[in-house]
């Protein structure tokens, strides 16, 4: 729970910092995102993601996941959504799914923002008891 709280603070503070331009379907999917995580958050799904964050904060993870899947259908290359989905799974100890969603998030995130995804992957590996793999991920990607 503490881990989730830290993440939420991280996501809330970052999410507030940016005004994303009005998105378009083609803009959101034409090519891999090159900007930072919060620069590229697509307003199409921002409301859904925001609601999902609220739900996770209230431990309503199941409904949050439903909302995040809806957001993914609108904007499937939003690494932020994949990452939040991973964190939601992590919070309910769905370690395998958490790891895989975070790996998917890596595809769409900038190098800088990938660190959070690698951290989630390492945490998921820890949760599965694979301490060695978690340690090597942390070392390789400089995750503290």
């Amino acid at each position, binding site marked *: 729970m503490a881990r989730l709280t830290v993440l939420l603070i991280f996501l809330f503070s970052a999410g507030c910092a940016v005004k994303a331009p009005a998105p378009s*379907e083609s803009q959101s999917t034409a090519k*891999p995102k090159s900007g930072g995580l919060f620069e590229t958050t697509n307003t199409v799904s921002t409301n859904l993601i925001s609601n999902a964050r609220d739900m996770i904060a209230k431990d309503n993870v199941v409904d949050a996941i439903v909302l995040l899947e809806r957001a993914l*259908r609108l904007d499937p290359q939003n690494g932020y959504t994949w990452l939040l989905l991973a964190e939601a799974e992590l919070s309910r100890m769905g370690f395998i799914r958490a790891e895989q969603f975070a790996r998917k998030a890596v595809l769409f995130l900038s190098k800088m923002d990938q660190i959070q995804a690698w951290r989630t992957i390492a945490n998921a590996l820890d949760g599965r008891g694979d301490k060695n793999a978690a340690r090597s991920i942390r070392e390789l990607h400089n995750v503290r």
Partner: protein
Amino acid sequence: MVYLDGTITRTFEGRRWTVPARVFAQPLEFYEGMGLSQEAFLIELDRLGYSPHRSGEYPGTYHIGPRSVVVTLRPFRFPDGHRAAQTVSVRFRGDRLSRLLSAGPTGPVRLEPAVIGSFFPSHGEDRLIVEPENTPHLLTETLIAVEDRNFQSHWGFDIGGILRALMVNVAEGKVRQGGSTLTQQLVKSYFLDNRRTFIRKFRELIMAIILERQFEKEELLNAYINEIFLGQNGHRAIHGFGLGSQFYFGRPLEELGTEEIALLVAIVRGPTYYNPYRYPERAQARRDRVLNTMRAYDLIDDATVRAALANPIQLATSRAGGRYYPAFMDLVRRELSRDFDSDDLADNGYRIFTTLKPYLQDAAQTATLRTLGKLERERNLPTKTLEAAVIIRHSQTGDVHAVVGGRTRGSQGFNRALDARRQVGSLLKPVVALSALESGHYHLASSVDDAPIVLPDFNNWTPLNFDGQFRGPVPLIRVLSDSLNVATVRVGMDVGVAKVANRITNLTGKPIAHPFPSLFLGALDLTPFEVSELYAAFASGGFLTPGRSVVVVLDDRAATLSRYAIDVKQIFSPDNAAAMTRALQVAMQRGTGRSSQFRSTGIAGKTGSSDNYRDSWVAVFDANLLTIAWIGKDDNGAHGLSGSRGALRLWDLLAQDLDIQSALVPGLSNELAWTWIDYQTGNETTEQCPNAVNVPLPRSVDLPSKIECARGSSRRRSKIP
């Protein structure tokens, strides 16, 4: 009598209609900036039975103004909550939705999803339950006026009504009127069969009296409205006014106009005889009689009856309630069979939310029909010689958006998309290339000798290229892109047939018992759906992304019974995924897919054909959609169509309705860099050279330089061309 009383009361009190599971498509979500033209938006509204109105302020109506479209969305219970009726104003600029104003919460707005089918029980009864508060007052009043004018006062039977019917029938010399009350009709439909015997009639009478004694009039009327038979659609029996309204008009009951209510009441008297699809004039005459009765009983005024009489019968063109997609429904049924038995699906009023996108399904069906017809004409084949199958699914989520099982639209015949196992030919070559990359001994510029090869351990097998020519040393990317058989076998033998077979099994879930080198050239039978599973890994950046057609199943009280979440599993590295996607982009741009008019849009894919051109395949993906198309004959006969001359043309036609985006190429790790190479030789080159292609290569690789074009080093990170 006491026994009958107890039985009827118990049965009726605990009455539970057979309510088949209703299956919904994926709802269209719209938002500012979305690529959506006004025309496409109106088509979606039309598909859902929305009708034009002078203000668009009523649920299920819209108004096209000079600058925007005002539409009032119907209330709908989505899996994640109820949405009340909501009025939105939508403005378009070109092919884009430029402005969306809504009184509701901000963010994307959903149309309610289209009903795409039901799972009926064996007796075929289908219905939509209507609660009393959703039943138009005019309907109940009209029913009473036309069918049972003393309903509110009689005890289940109506002597006056019986005598009146008798007199009319005797005077006209044929049965024009029935003397049964609504309660008797309900009893007959609910408890009894259709035999016309005195004993049955007597039982009907007694049971009607018992029902009247035990239940309120309003309860009986609501039961009647949900029970009565209103038509037949193949094996499907249309019961109740809720479904009747959807079936005949494509709209909910509460949105019907006067003449439409009159027609439904008219049909009650004889759903076959007054079938408005088959006998429109007869049905209209009966409707007009009902309208006059409505006026006679002061249910409507003179102006309304005049207007209603002037309106011809207008029925839903698609027989909404609806537009059925049997090949997709087949997939839904198979997925659900893991968790539900067929009785549960047929009886319990479940609501099943799926991933079907009706516009994609329609586009795929249309492209299939048109392409097959054109190919048959061009090749002088008898009509309906060729068959086809198409699967469209989302590249990143695995959502299956469309399934075409054959050329016959709407027919529940052999589902080729799921069941036709056909040789896949060159569609397997990407797995050989992937295995080579994963071996660590190859990269996309690795030189492979396209020269004669004999395999003494395999019966001296001597593979040949499609044109019988040999090209000498060629880069791996060209081996794949130009679909060179001999070089592919050489690579495959170097990597090992067992490794390639294992990779195919990983990607498709299909075990290969005795792998032979012919596997490298696609000597394997797969269904189009299995092929889509294989290519999903390439389309998603190296993740197994199982196809699924069902999102969630709710019970009749909207509680979740089963949820089918997005599932991904990384199966190869992002670097290899990037290399493979790039290679498959080049295959469409320069290789066997180059005849596509979309070759320069960044699509990725591979064509395939089997021995003697019995099967024509294509697998194409962009950032959003993966499409598999197959064309062949059911008797497995030759038709002479390669992948590019058959299935690729089908995809090209389909793609005209798609918003094509460049395929996703994952970002590279520090070990790889984008590099310009010569497509013919694999030598390093520069962007300006005519055969230059940009590919991800290991930084450690030292390529021979192509002097005449190499102006300085091009080993740099660069944008994808």
